[in-house]
């Protein structure tokens, strides 16, 4: 093969929400594109992350709704129970359908899908290995989108895998059974979502989080509220707590959990590690061709997402920055456009929505109150509880609230933070507000449909302005 002949303009390594979206956009813009994927199309998000977890949550919520249907005046005679196999099968069907969808999109956009593990030979060549067979592929540009995988966080005494009752999120989305008693380590999005699922399906769940609230990456009012709601549902929420060590028992683990200086021993069948992921960079000879790595993943030189090798870009989880599917996709679109159009535009991370799909849901975008203050803003906040809304009362979704964080002098919208039913579907209003540089005054000028849960956003902005109508 002559030295400067290429198989494609762009090779994307990894077909998660970062890689597959980048590939499609590059193809739409006219590039010839190859995607190398060692496992399943859709990556973590579609196969082990966002989608299967949401499918399990949906089944759990359906079960809970039936259990509590009497509150809505619906009487159920006879026993209500779950068919766990059917729940897992349904989830599996959702995942395979979506996976097939990505494959269809590749065909439609004439994207060359190569199965196997990619490793760099030089900065324009990779070798792809599948079942012991190696193929060389050359391209002008590469997009690294290898994502991340679970790792086992070291806990003294805790050893083994699924068989020994030590689960990661990969096991939790393919659960062999509903444990009777389980301890979930880490109160981030993954930890609280599985707490909701397994508690809702009948497990006795203890959730251990080191920080003073669950979902500590969000405005602390949200974590407080979610912690309260999960407790109400029966989850043993322990915040400011640590899992010091575990001892193996016949059927599981004795867990030593310290909260505020007091240690208790909790016996469980399963310990679920809800934290700990690692960028997938091993065995690819990245350092050999000059792509620099840092502790958490591939190092990029700036927000145009170039690596230290000019024709190689990195997006999504593999950069060790924001680990969210929609960020990976947005970075994919940016990089694909930059490559094909020869631009060097930077990502803007000012308005990245962050959602948690528990019941109630949590959604947040922009600066939290404490972040805004520590960045030197003079802050005004507004808050409105859903219970003040007609829609919330009518549908029985009165828990939770909306909180807005704004800058005082100009009324600039800095953050929107919500906990309650359907809030993940309401967060785009906050994204638009921040991206379009809305002010409090411009927000309260917008007519919100009645009756909707989103009226609480209007009211919270009114509150920040000093005049909520229903407060």
């Amino acid at each position, binding site marked *: 093969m002559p030295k400067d002949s290429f198989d494609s303009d762009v090779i994307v390594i990894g077909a998660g929400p970062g890689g597959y979206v980048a590939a499609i956009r590059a193809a739409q813009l006219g590039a010839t594109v190859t995607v190398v994927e060692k496992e399943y199309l859709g990556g973590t998000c579609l196969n082990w992350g966002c989608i299967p977890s949401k499918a399990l949550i949906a089944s759990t919520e359906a079960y809970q709704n039936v259990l509590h249907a009497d509150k809505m005046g619906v009487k159920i005679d006879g026993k209500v129970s779950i068919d766990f196999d059917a729940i897992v099968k349904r989830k599996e069907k959702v995942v395979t359908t979506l996976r097939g969808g990505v494959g269809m999109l590749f065909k439609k956009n004439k994207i060359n899908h190569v199965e196997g593990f990619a490793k760099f030979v030089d900065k324009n060549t990779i070798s792809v290995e599948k079942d012991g067979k190696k193929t060389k592929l050359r391209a002008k540009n590469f997009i690294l989108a290898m994502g991340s995988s679970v790792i086992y966080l070291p806990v003294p005494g805790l050893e083994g895998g699924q068989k020994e009752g030590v689960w990661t999120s990969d096991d939790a989305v393919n659960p062999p059974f509903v444990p009777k008693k389980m301890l979930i380590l880490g109160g981030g999005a993954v930890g609280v979502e599985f707490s909701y699922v397994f508690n809702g399906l009948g497990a006795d769940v203890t959730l251990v989080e080191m920080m003073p609230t669950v979902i500590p990456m969000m405005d602390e009012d949200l974590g407080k509220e979610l912690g309260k709601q999960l407790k109400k549902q029966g989850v043993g929420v322990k915040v400011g707590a640590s899992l010091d060590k575990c001892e193996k028992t016949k059927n599981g683990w004795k867990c030593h959990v310290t909260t505020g200086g007091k240690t208790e021993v909790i016996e469980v069948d399963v310990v679920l590690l809800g934290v700990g992921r690692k960028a997938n960079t091993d065995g690819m000879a990245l350092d050999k061709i000059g792509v620099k790595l840092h502790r958490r993943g591939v190092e990029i030189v700036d927000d145009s997402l170039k690596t230290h090798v000019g024709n190689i870009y990195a997006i999504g989880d593999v950069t060790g920055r924001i680990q969210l599917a929609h960020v990976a996709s947005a970075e994919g679109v940016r990089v694909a456009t930059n490559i094909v159009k020869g631009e060097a535009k930077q990502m803007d991370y000012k308005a990245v929505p962050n959602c948690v799909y528990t019941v109630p849901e949590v959604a947040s975008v922009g600066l939290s109150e404490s972040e805004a203050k520590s960045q030197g803003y003079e802050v005004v906040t507004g808050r409105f509880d859903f219970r003040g809304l007609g829609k919330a009362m009518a549908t029985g979704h009165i828990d939770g609230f909306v909180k807005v964080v704004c800058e005082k002098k*100009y009324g*600039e919208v800095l953050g929107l933070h919500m906990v309650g039913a359907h809030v993940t579907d309401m967060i785009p209003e906050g994204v638009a507000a921040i991206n379009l*540089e809305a002010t409090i005054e411009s927000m309260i000028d917008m007519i919100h449909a009645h009756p909707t849960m989103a009226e609480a956003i209007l009211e919270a902005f009114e509150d920040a302005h000093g005049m909520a109508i229903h407060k």
Partner: protein
Amino acid sequence: MTEVIMPKMGDGMEEGTLLEWLKNEGDSVKSGEVIGNIQTDKAVMELEAPGKGKLAGILVPVGETVPVGVPIAALLKDGESLPDGWGSGAPAAPAAEPEPAVVAAPVAAAPVAAKSTGRVKASPLAKKVAEKAGIEIAAVAGTGPGGRIVERDVRAAIEQQSTRIPAAPPVAAAAEDIKVPLNHLRGIIAQRTLESKQQVPHFYVTVEVDLERIETLRQAFKEEESGKVSVNDFVVKACAKALVDMPEANATYGGDHVLQFGSVNIGVAAAVDDGLLVPVVKGCENLTIRQISQSVRDLVGKARDGRLLPDEMQGSTFSISNMGMLNVDNFTAIINAPNAAIVAISTAKRVPVVVSDDEIEIRTVMNITGSFDHRVLDGASGAKFINIIRDYLESPTHLLS
């Protein structure tokens, strides 16, 4: 006596409306007691007594709006009475806020160049920041999607302005340095000219115009006592005709197109006390030189008296800057964006000129220099245009119809 002034109850507050007095004249009030309600642009706020005493001399009736810092009533201690002339409008020193920033009214009343009408594509935050900084948002160049003006654009504009206004006096300022704060008009001129010079690629073409025939004509006008016509009037008329002949110059750059205007509206720069205004003579293509002359005289007079209406400073399609009376040999003018061209008129002089047959004659000539937006016109068109003006000025009977 303690003055009760319209308090500043928020960062952006410039004036307040008295909603109600909760106390009557003669009532005794304690310090901090709520004596009335005030409506600001944001909320209804309570007016607290700034001291104790009897409420007296209410100057602001319910419903009236006054600027922050202005006295609105007084509090009298036992034995005190209102000073003579209380409320006669004598400028009482604003007690709480010595900053004169609160007297926004006279500035607002002064004619402001091209107050933006119509929709400005700008983010709400950008508008707010501009408003608080006293920047004309329409004059800010937008860099957001589709040219939308976003916060960083306004910040950049403020930055540009503030490089002109040192934020603080130098620590050991030499005694003879005087800091003259920019008045509103200066601020606008500064911003407009900077923007034009930065954003419009200018090029310049100069020609010498022989004024002999115009001088002869003017002399005839004078002798026949048919009313004065100035050189400037001839220039305006010549430009109007040249613009009709060459609509390419009567245009503006539109990003993906050039817009050629249907009518010829000529802005005539006029020096005023505190700066420069550009009143616009509209529809010049249909005006006789007499009508132009009259119109220019009216507008410039109004400009000098500060009586120009915003509408009379808007909508120019071309401009003229005349320094004829200032004894200059030649100068170049900054394009009055969004126009595509401006012509600079210098002082007419008697100079030796080589005429036909290589003879030397003393004649009256003047330099005129066109500044052109290279995005709209190229050198050759600029040269052609300035020569058309010259031809008209050198054959002025064409200008009399």
